[in-house]
């Protein structure tokens, strides 16, 4: 899976360059009214981040994905993922700038050439055009904030701020509990029906690390934590690694939650922050919602 991603990265770089040309030309078009444009909202975000010491990256997925960046913004919706359902709800709520943490077109780099003839892609693009929506991704730089807005949102939602130790906001030390109790707590706080757990339910837990999608990072986290909290990992690597680790007698566990349940919450804080940057524009968080249901 590495090769296609490399070529996608290359493609993204090309589209960024062509986007930069657009920026200088179109930003000077005469204002039709006083409302700021989607591009100006993004410039305010960039300026504010620069003040916080976060330089804008040359290579980033944080780019416009659909719609005209010079559209006047009537309202902003922040969300975990610009699914068609979220776009429908944003349009109905009069929010024409959608700021999404995750991709719009079902791949990390939002490449679309392979979808040119796809009826679903056309439907989504038509919906965006018909409702004059603009979609912009806010992924790399929201994670770069200190603390990371996305994972502080998760920490607050879990009620675990008081368990943060030291500077690393993804490490928690908590009063002793069990894996089963902790998983039940995560399930109810995250309002998720699709939590899955690996390890002995009676495992004693005090040290928890909010880990990663990747095997390397999860292995490193498991050296120091009793339990890792994971928002989606590949089932043939991290999950099977932990299964083997527990089979060898190591007292470790994993709470696996949907990607959405992991990263949804910080986009609410993002909306609150944007209200301070663009107070003249209504801004609200539209939860993407749990993608799955289960038989119970």
């Amino acid at each position, binding site marked *: 899976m590495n090769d296609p991603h490399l070529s996608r990265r290359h493609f993204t770089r090309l589209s960024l360059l062509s986007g930069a040309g657009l920026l200088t030309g179109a930003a000077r078009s005469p204002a039709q009214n006083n409302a700021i444009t989607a591009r100006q909202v993004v410039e305010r975000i960039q300026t504010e981040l620069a003040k916080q010491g976060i330089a804008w990256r040359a290579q980033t997925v944080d780019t416009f994905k659909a719609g005209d960046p010079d559209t006047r913004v009537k309202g902003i919706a922040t969300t975990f*993922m610009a*699914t*068609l*359902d979220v776009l*429908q709800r944003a349009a109905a709520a009069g929010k024409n700038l959608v700021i999404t943490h*995750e*991709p719009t077109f*079902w*791949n*990390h780099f939002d490449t679309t050439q*392979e979808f040119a003839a*796809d009826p*679903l892609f056309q*439907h*989504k693009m038509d919906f965006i055009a018909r409702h004059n929506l603009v979609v912009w991704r806010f992924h790399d730089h929201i994670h770069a904030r200190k603390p990371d807005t996305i994972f502080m949102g998760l920490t607050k939602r879990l009620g675990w701020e008081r368990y943060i130790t030291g500077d690393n906001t993804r490490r928690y030390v908590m009063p002793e509990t069990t894996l*089963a109790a902790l*998983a*039940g707590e*995560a*399930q109810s706080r995250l309002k998720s029906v*699709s*939590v*899955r*757990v*690996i390890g*002995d*339910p009676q495992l004693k837990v005090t040290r928890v690390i909010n880990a990663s999608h990747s095997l390397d990072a999860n292995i490193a986290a498991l050296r120091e934590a009793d339990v890792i909290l994971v928002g*989606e990992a*590949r*089932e*043939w690597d991290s*999950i*099977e690694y*932990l*299964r083997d680790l527990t089979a060898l007698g190591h007292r470790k566990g994993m709470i*696996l939650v*949907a*990607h*959405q349940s992991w990263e949804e919450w910080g986009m609410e804080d993002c909306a609150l922050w944007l209200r301070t940057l663009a107070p003249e524009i209504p801004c609200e968080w539209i939860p993407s919602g749990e*993608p*799955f*249901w*289960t*038989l*119970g």
Partner: protein
Amino acid sequence: MDGQLRGLARALGWEQYHQPDGKPGEEPYHPGDAFFRLPETTLKSVALKIRARLKLNGLRLIGAPQTKARKVGLSHGLILVPELRRLLQAQVDLVVIGEPIEWEASPYFQDIVASGQKKGMIILGHAASADPGSGEVARWLKTFITEVPINWIPAGEPFWPPKQAQQGRP
């Protein structure tokens, strides 16, 4: 023949429902020959039957529970968007898959549903979808290795859901 596909179809008890595409020069269950016509039922009732038959705890579903499920496309292991699109192009009501990437195939399917198409997805889990194929390997090996005993040892589903643990059945 795709032994993984054949094994999963056998484990589901769906061989009787297989609709071979009859591609010249190909055996049934060649890769992509993955379509089944079930007696008319719903997404939820198919999911309940699969859960009971494969003894799974971690099934996840997308789509309205009462979605009609006649034509089904079957997949195992990781599914990427191109494979999902091929299944959907065959006008299936339901896809039964192993593991989606949650920023690729599963949101593609969520968008299919949001666009008004009445379709359902049953996510078995990677191990659950690939386990029966290993049984198929054992079955095949026995046809030409007769001197040693050959057994399939199912890996089983790796996870348990929190509620069941609280009820003491991890």
